[in-house]
């Protein structure tokens, strides 16, 4: 049993080297715009990774993941907006003019997304199966409509940011610096998540996917574990949202449109669920495919749609599963 794990390590290491070497390579090729594509991939991978925790390991098919990204992005956008305009943030107990500091914006984005995940999760987890899919979708869409009809923060048009978040000593306005910050966050999340899924907590979560009733019979309060995982996934997706706001320097309701939730799901399935690394492979493949198809034809969705149906029907294990070979389904 020594060969398959080595293949997995080779795949992971190659992926890591490609991600690390990308900015210098892009500069050398004279195509610095590749860095912004790569940043989108890394951020999307972080979002897909957070979904993998609840879907791939917990068996919870959330179709509302974009809501958490939207919340994270809006926290950054709203704080930056009030900071620039130096106006008070409404509906807060104290008087606060917002902030441009990443060390304030990002943790608050994570907290807000976690809180929303905790509240909606407590409701959504009362249901299961197809109800869960529809209810998560409905809550995300509720948030979408809420921000669309909220004129204070631009409604449909959203908020344009003046600059990226401020970190002392790090210039995020340089694309390659921002890329490495995002990559560092992604790698840290991967490390934490791979510890989590192999911990007792992760075992319970995987048990919920296989047979929740049996775990409950063993005296484990499965609901609390699932809610904790759901909240954690929401928090990390909120962080991905804060990064998205910084990457595009724009925050709008389109970030949490239901098709965005669909895209995150597609990336994860494409890469392979329940593998963590598959989220990265899926995000890279999906966004690269999108870049290539859009450069070929305006009607790229005409091709992406059938490709997607085909992948679902015939390629069950995802790209990562295919890369690391058949033996490494579990490590």
């Amino acid at each position, binding site marked *: 049993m020594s060969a398959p794990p080595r293949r997995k390590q080779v795949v992971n290491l190659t992926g890591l080297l490609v991600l690390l070497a990308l900015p210098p390579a892009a500069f050398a090729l004279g195509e610095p715009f590749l860095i912004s594509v790569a940043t989108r991939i890394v951020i999307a991978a972080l979002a897909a990774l957070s979904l993998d925790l609840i879907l791939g390991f917990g068996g919870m098919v959330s179709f509302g993941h974009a809501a958490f990204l939207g919340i994270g992005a809006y926290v950054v956008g709203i704080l930056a907006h009030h900071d620039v305009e130096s106006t008070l943030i409404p509906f807060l107990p104290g008087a606060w003019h917002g902030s441009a500091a990443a060390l304030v914006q990002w943790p608050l984005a994570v907290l807000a997304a976690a809180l929303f995940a905790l509240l909606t999760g407590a409701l959504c987890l009362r249901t299961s199966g197809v109800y869960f899919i529809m209810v998560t979708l409905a809550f995300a869409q509720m948030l979408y409509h809420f921000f669309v009809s909220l004129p204070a923060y631009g409604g449909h048009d959203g908020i344009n940011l003046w600059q990226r978040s401020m970190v002392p000593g790090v210039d995020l306005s340089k694309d390659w610096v921002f890329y490495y910050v995002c990559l560092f966050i992604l790698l840290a999340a991967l490390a934490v998540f791979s510890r989590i899924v192999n911990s007792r907590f992760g075992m319970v979560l995987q048990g919920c996917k296989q047979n929740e009733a049996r775990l409950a019979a063993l005296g484990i309060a499965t609901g609390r574990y699932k809610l904790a995982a759901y909240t954690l996934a929401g928090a990390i997706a909120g962080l991905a949202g804060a990064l998205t706001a910084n990457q595009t320097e724009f925050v709008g309701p389109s970030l949490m449109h239901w098709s965005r939730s669909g895209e995150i799901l597609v990336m994860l*399935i494409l890469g392979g669920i329940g593998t963590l690394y598959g989220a990265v492979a899926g995000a890279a493949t999906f966004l690269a495919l999108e870049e290539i198809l859009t450069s070929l034809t305006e*009607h790229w969705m005409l091709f992406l749609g059938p490709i997607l149906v085909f992948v679902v*029907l015939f390629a069950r294990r995802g790209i990562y599963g295919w890369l690391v070979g058949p033996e490494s389904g579990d490590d």
Partner: protein
Amino acid sequence: MTAQLFLEQTLNGLQQGVTLFLLAAGLTLVFGVMHLINLAHGTLYMVGAYVAATVTQISGNFLWGVIAAVAAAGLTGAAIEIIALRRLYDRGHLDQVLATFGVIMFFNELVKVLWGPQALFLSPPAILSGTVEVIPGVPYPAYRLLIIGVGLAVALAVRQLITGTRTGMLIRAGATDREMVGALGVAVNRLFTRVFAIGAMLAGLAGAMAGPLLAIEVGMGEHILILTFVVVIIGGIGSVRGALVGALLVGLVDTYGRAFLPVVLRGVLSPTAADGIGASLSSIAIYVLMAAVLIWRPRGLFQAYG
């Protein structure tokens, strides 16, 4: 004055409700019998609206438009079922969601290629463009009344179909135990295609009827699909009676919220703030309704058959 406004909004809510019912009935039947969650159901609604607009324009008669829309949606639905969805019945819901998501992408883009990206508009037939005084002092658009009438008639027809025909008997039996129905010698594949086509035709009818009331554009199907999901969750997945009750509830709550929440808020807030916050709150009213129903009954108001 207030009573008149209330009556008018009630009729608006009913009209929105029956449109939602036409979609929810198909969605819930397909789920009840095939255990398939079909995101592409809204696509059939969109196909109905586009075909109705085009055929009405060519023939000059709205009725032909509606007939063509129902036929086109039924055929599209049957084609989708036979080509792609048939392979998904034994798969998990996740695969079904993703594959039907791909179907949506394809059809949205196809509609853009065929009809162009700009929205179409369709006017209601001339005979129905006036108003009717349903209750003295409350003039109401005749076309919207027709929608309410058609919706309720279809609700009765669906009930008759399910309780009084052989197909309906097979639908009920299929919802209870698919394999047993197959084992008894029923051509289950053909039954499934038929159920899917019936649902598709109802969605096409909804699209054609709603066409004159809104801009016909790409994405209209998804907007109403999610409202339909809320309806089905509230009513209970698989139950047609639940779909009717849920649709009317959602239609009324949504309409009342939009009409009266800003007015109520003006009592406590400044007019601009009341309008802004009222609009935001009323847009989430139905989701609050859904959350309330879920707390009370996590599997919806009505049980499916069996």
